[in-house]
Structure formats: C-alpha cells, structure tokens
C-alpha cells in the first residue's frame, strides 16, 4: 500500500502540472470567448437564443465523447493544413483536450454573463445614458462592474467543471490527473483511482476558493480581496507548472499504450530498454484502438504494441483470414506502403479474442467449440469489453457460426472477468494472453472454423523513426522473445487482487525473466 502511495506521489508533479496547464488554459480561453459573446447576447435578443441554446447543446454531449470527437476533426484539419500550407499540427493530446474543455467551460460563463448584464437595474442604465455615457462607456463603467459578481460565480462553476472534465483528456493522449484514474481502473489499483479523484477534487476546491475570493472582492467592491484571489491563482498555476519546465525535452521518444495492463507492461518494457540506452522517454497511455494507430502514423507517438488481427480488420479493412503468417507478412508490406509504418516483428505471443467460460458452466452445457456455443447462445448472456461488439471480428464470428445471444453486456475488461465469475455473464470475450484465464481455471472455447483472426502482438514504429538506430537497437531484441506464458504471468501479477505489482514492476520482472 505504501509503495503504491509513494508511486502515486512520485507521478504527481507531472500529472498535476499538465492538469493545471490544461484546465487553466481552457478556462482562460473560455472566458475570453464567452464574455464578448455574453455581452453580444445581452445586447441582441435575436442572438441570445442561438448562443445560449448552442452552449447548452454542447453541454449535453458527454464530455468524454466531446473530447474524443475532436481527435478526428483535428486530424482532418491538420491534413488539410498540411496540404494547403505545408504544415500540420498534432491532433492528439493537448490541442483536442484544450478545445473540448474550452467549449465545455462556456455555458456557465455565457449564461451568468448574459443574465447578469440584463439584470442591471433599468434605472441605472437610464442614469448611465442620462449622464452622457456612450453605450461602450455604459458597458465598461457601469454594466460590467455591476454584473461582475454574477459573472465570477459563472467562472467558478466553469472552473470546477473544467478541472473535473480534464481528467477525461487521458484517453486522447493528454497527461492529466485522469492518468491515475484510467490506469488504476485497468489494473485495479484502487490507491491510484482514489488518489486521482482526491487530487482532482482538491485542485477543484482550491481553484473554487481562490475564485470565490475574487468574486467576494467584486461583490464587496474590495480591490484587496480581488487582487489576493488573482495573486493566489497566479502563484498556484506557476507552482504547478514548474515541474513541466524540465519535461518534454525535444528528442525524447514517445511510447504509446492502449488501455489495458498488457499494454502498460509492454510500454514500460520498451521505455526501460530505451532508458537503458540513455534516451529520455515520454508516455502516452490509455489511447483508444483506432486513435493509437493513427497517432503512430502521424508521428505523434514513436512506437507501441498492436495486434495483427486488429490492424488487419481495422486498418486494412479485411474480413478474411488467410492464416497467421500470411496476415503478418501482408500487414508488414501494406502498412509500410500505405503509411510508412514499420512492423518491427511479432513479440512471440498471441493475444486473440477468445470466448471463455467457467468450467462448470461449459461442462453442464456441453460446450467445447463456438459451434456448441451457437446452439446454447439464445439462452446465454455474453459479456464483452467496450469495443468487441462493434468490431469486425464479432461480425465474422456471428457470420461463421450464426451466433446470437439472449443478452449482450459491455464492461471494462476488469469488470468483465468479475461478471463471468459472478455469474452475470455466461461467456465473455476474453484475451488469450490474459493471466486470469489460467488463474481462474477458465475454459477457452475453440474456434474450429478459424473465424477469429490471429492476434500476434507486433511492435510498430512510426514513419519518422523508421531509421532511428537507437530505437531499433532498443526494441529489436524483444522480437520473438515474449512467450504467451511469460506474458500471462506478467499480466496476472498486475491484474490479481493480492500482492499486485505495478506495470513498471511487472515489466522489470518480465525483462529479467526473458534476459532482455
């Protein structure tokens, strides 16, 4: 427990720095856009409705989806700008997070701003006209100062929302306090999850209190209070950003990982080997499946581990299954030709989708193959991970065996196993390298028609690092070295309930076991 807490503390300066940088920038940008819009909305009834309705509409989009949507949009814009002006920009990480959070912060500022300006007493507006103010002087000398406390209350709400929602920028590749939560959820490291929640809550509370000071200053017309609040905010932001100054040096390698334990472990393994060569390494974790490949092709990450079947169906849009070796060979040739991506080679194990059941249940229903499963499926519940049901593999299996379940439920991978052992699901879409299959003595249902594509774990290198000697030297020795048993054991050490290892510890153990 103490070791995990220490690990969490050690990551805090980096995570907090990014979280503060991201939320403060989004809030500032949000205020800069929302305030003029609020003024315009208060001046024109015709503008008021569409502006406020638009902001409300954005608020109804789940914040995680809003963040995710900006990635493809930015990717398209970046490609366009590359074609038009010869320069692209990163579509992953800070920019999509900043834009989504900015949009997200606007509603309370807009709504409070317009209401506050409209709420200024009619007699006071008339007096402002009567003493000879221009509309602009009336706005800046009378209406805005009087509306300031209510506007500040809106900024406070926006700050709390933004800081909370910023934890969701982790899956689009932006480091934040959300890294604790996402990584913790995957590896059932509850210390990390709670630490991330507590840190983000504490940050939101502190920001809220300091902004509250500014609001009180505006309400009581006390310049001292306002300045104290602003100074507190400035000092806080500056302190939080200090650790970032030494971070992200150019020339460092960026290793990507999707959102499950095996990916964290392999990313750590690659990072450790690079660091052993004296390179500095950054991590982008918890990337979505499609996001990870596109980020690599765009050069935003330098290397990560993907699976041949995933690339075969998602990237090459293939539904057929010519066999393990042909898939790997065609992938290597096609990805190089299409995107310049280097398939360095297979690590030596497969992490395929596999239908897995509890042994007692499989025996009772006489299920050994997917064909048997298809017979009983109308009475059974399938538990799957969040993406399986929308993947082509699922359609291929359905087509090959005529599989149709009574109920289908989606879970985070960790909870999927819980659902199986707890009986809420009869069969789950597991991963063949998962340590929990052996640990829980689960039965893998066979696939006689070979409907599910091979899923060899392969190391991918971005086009711009294709000739990078140090990267190749660090990663090449891993090829063909990782057995499925070794990987299962490493996965289990992170996923199990007792004596849990961190992904970094598991990576170290794996590296030593394999002599890397």
């Amino acid at each position, binding site marked *: 427990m103490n070791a995990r807490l220490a690990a969490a503390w050690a990551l805090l300066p980096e995570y907090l720095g990014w979280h503060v940088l991201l939320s403060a920038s989004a809030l500032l940008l949000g205020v800069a856009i929302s305030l003029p819009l609020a003024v315009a909305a208060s001046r024109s009834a015709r503008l008021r409705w569409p502006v406020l309705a638009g902001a409300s509409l954005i608020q109804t989009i789940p914040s995680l989806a809003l963040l995710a949507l900006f990635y493809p949009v930015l990717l398209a814009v970046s490609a366009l700008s590359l074609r038009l002006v010869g320069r692209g920009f990163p579509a992953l990480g800070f920019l999509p997070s900043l834009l989504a959070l900015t949009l997200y912060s606007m509603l309370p500022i807009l709504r409070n701003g317009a209401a506050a300006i409209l709420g200024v007493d009619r007699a006071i507006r*008339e007096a402002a006209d009567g003493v000879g103010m221009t509309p602009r002087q009336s706005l800046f000398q009378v209406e805005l100062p009087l509306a300031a406390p209510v506007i500040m209350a809106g900024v406070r709400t926006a700050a709390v929302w933004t800081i909370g929602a910023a934890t969701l920028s982790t899956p689009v590749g932006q480091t934040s306090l959300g890294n604790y939560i996402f990584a913790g959820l995957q590896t059932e490291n509850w210390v990390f999850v709670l630490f991330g929640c507590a840190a983000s809550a504490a940050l939101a509370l502190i920001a809220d209190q300091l902004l509250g000071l500014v609001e009180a200053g505006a309400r009581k017309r006390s310049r001292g209070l306002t300045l104290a609040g602003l100074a507190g905010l400035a000092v806080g932001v500056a302190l939080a950003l200090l650790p970032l100054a030494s971070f992200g040096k150019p020339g460092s390698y960026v290793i990507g990982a999707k959102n499950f334990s095996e990916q964290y472990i392999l990313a750590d393994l690659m990072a450790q080997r690079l660091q052993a060569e004296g390179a500095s390494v950054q991590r982008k974790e918890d990337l979505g499946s499609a996001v990870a490949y596109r980020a690599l092709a765009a050069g935003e990450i330098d290397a990560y581990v993907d699976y041949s079947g995933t690339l075969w169906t998602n990237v090459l849009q293939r539904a057929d299954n010519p066999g393990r070796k042909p898939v790997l060979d065609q992938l290597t040739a096609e990805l190089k030709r299409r995107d310049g991506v280097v398939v360095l080679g297979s690590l030596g194990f497969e992490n395929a989708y596999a239908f897995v059941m509890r042994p007692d249940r499989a025996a009772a229903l006489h299920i050994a193959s997917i064909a048997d499963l298809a017979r009983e499926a109308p009475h059974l519940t399938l538990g799957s991970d969040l993406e399986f049901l929308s993947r082509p593999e699922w359609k291929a299996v359905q087509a090959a065996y005529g599989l149709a379940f009574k109920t289908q439920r989606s879970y985070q991978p960790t909870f999927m196993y819980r659902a199986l052992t707890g009986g809420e699901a009869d069969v789950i879409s597991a991963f063949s390298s998962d340590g929990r299959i052996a640990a829980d003595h689960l039965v893998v249902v066979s696939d006689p028609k070979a409907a599910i594509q091979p899923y060899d774990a392969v190391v991918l290198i971005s086009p711009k690092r294709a000739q990078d000697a140090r990267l190749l030297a660090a990663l090449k020795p891993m090829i063909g070295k990782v057995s499925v048993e070794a990987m299962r054991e490493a996965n289990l050490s992170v996923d199990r309930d007792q004596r849990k290892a961190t992904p970094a510890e598991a990576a170290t153990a794996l590296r030593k076991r394999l002599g890397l």
Partner: protein
Amino acid sequence: MAGAIELTGIEKRYGGHVALAGVSLAVQPGEFTALVGGSGSGKTTLLKTINGLVTPDAGEVRVQGEGAADQPPHLLRRKIGYVFQEIGLFPHLSVAENIAITPKLLGWAPDRIGPRVAALLELVALPSEVAGRAPSELSGGQRQRVGVARALAAEPKIMLMDEPFGALDPLTRDQLGADYRGLHERLGLTTLMVTHDMAEAVLLADRIVVLSAGRIVADGRPAELLAKTTDPEVRALLEAPKRQADRLRAKLGEAP
C-alpha cells in the same frame, strides 16, 4: 433670441398607441416650467425627447439653438442635467464618484473635479463627509440631493426633471422642492419638470403646461391659467390644490 428648448410638431407612437400627437413648445432661458398631466398623457415621453432618451417619429427638437438630431446623443446629454424619480445612482461608485461622472466623461482635469464636487455637496446642502460613502448608506432625500448634484456637476444651463421628488416623504419633498427652486434662481437655470402633483407645480413653477392624450391642452402662468381656461378637465386639475387646502383648513381648524 432663441429659446432654450424649442419643440416643433413632435410625434411619437408606440405600436398602435399615440404617445405624442404633434406637440410644439418653446421654453425661454431662465424659465421654470412644470409639465402636468395624468398618467399616459405623454409628459415623460415629451421630456425624454429633449435629451434624446426618446427619438421622436416626427418633429424637431432644438436645444440652445442646436438641432438635437444633428449631434451624437451622448454629447447632447452631457450639456443637459437629468434627474428622475428612481434617481439611478451608480451603486458601485461613491457619492463623490457619482457626482464627478459627467465632468470625467467631459475630460475635466482632476484638480478641477475635486473642488467642484465639494462645492456641489455644499450647494445641495449635504455634509462633506458623505463624499466617500456608498449611495446605499444614504437616506432617500440625501440620495436625491446627490442625484441633483450629479445632474448639475458639468454646469448645464438646462435641467430636465422627471417626478424628481415623487418618491420622497412629504416633508423632505417640500424641503427639497424649495431648495431646488432656490438653486434654479441662483444658477440661472432653465428647468423643465414633469409632475403629476398640481400643488407642487403651482408652488414651484413659473409656467404650467398641461398635457392630455399627447397634446397640450393648457399653457400659462398658474394664476392666469386658472382665470382663462374653459376646459373643464384642466379647470378641475387646477382647482384641486385649492380645494384640498380648503378641506385641510376645515378639518384642522384655522391656524392660529
């Protein structure tokens, strides 16, 4: 000599409602004129056409010989004092800052504004220590005194007042009315005051203009107005304060 305020054929409509149906009126410099009429008679609308708070649909407004439509409204308003019933002091500014607002807008030097604020507080009979206070710390009467001081700050020759003392208690109202009349004399102002209180109009004004349904129905000195008007409604309006005084005397008995 040109009049201080000249209104010619002013018309104003709000949707289907006619607020002003062709009003012409000339006010001479130094005159204290009361605009009287029931609610909806158009007296406030007429007053606001003079400083551009209301733009007439037709007709011409001239202030001190200049067409009101020929200049930006905010520049016109800086030359005209404006006092209204709700007062409209700026709650985020101190009393002194409220009074100094128009001189500041006109770009007066600070060393001219300071003494001016002090002089105005004295002029409206407020103690100098209220200068630093917030408007919310003052009584209603004190607030309207600040309102008058603010209107006078940039040394306008013309004052427009819309029911200025309407919300005050009778004693304060009487005192403030008399004090203002004194200021009008001392500063040589031209004052146009809207009121629905005929007694106040008779006591303060040199001239009474009666409006009804957007038209002027009577215009003259209080005494001659009563003598010459034939309109029964105007007559009733003019006789009201006299009847009230008689009834009061009967109820309270003759004063010793």
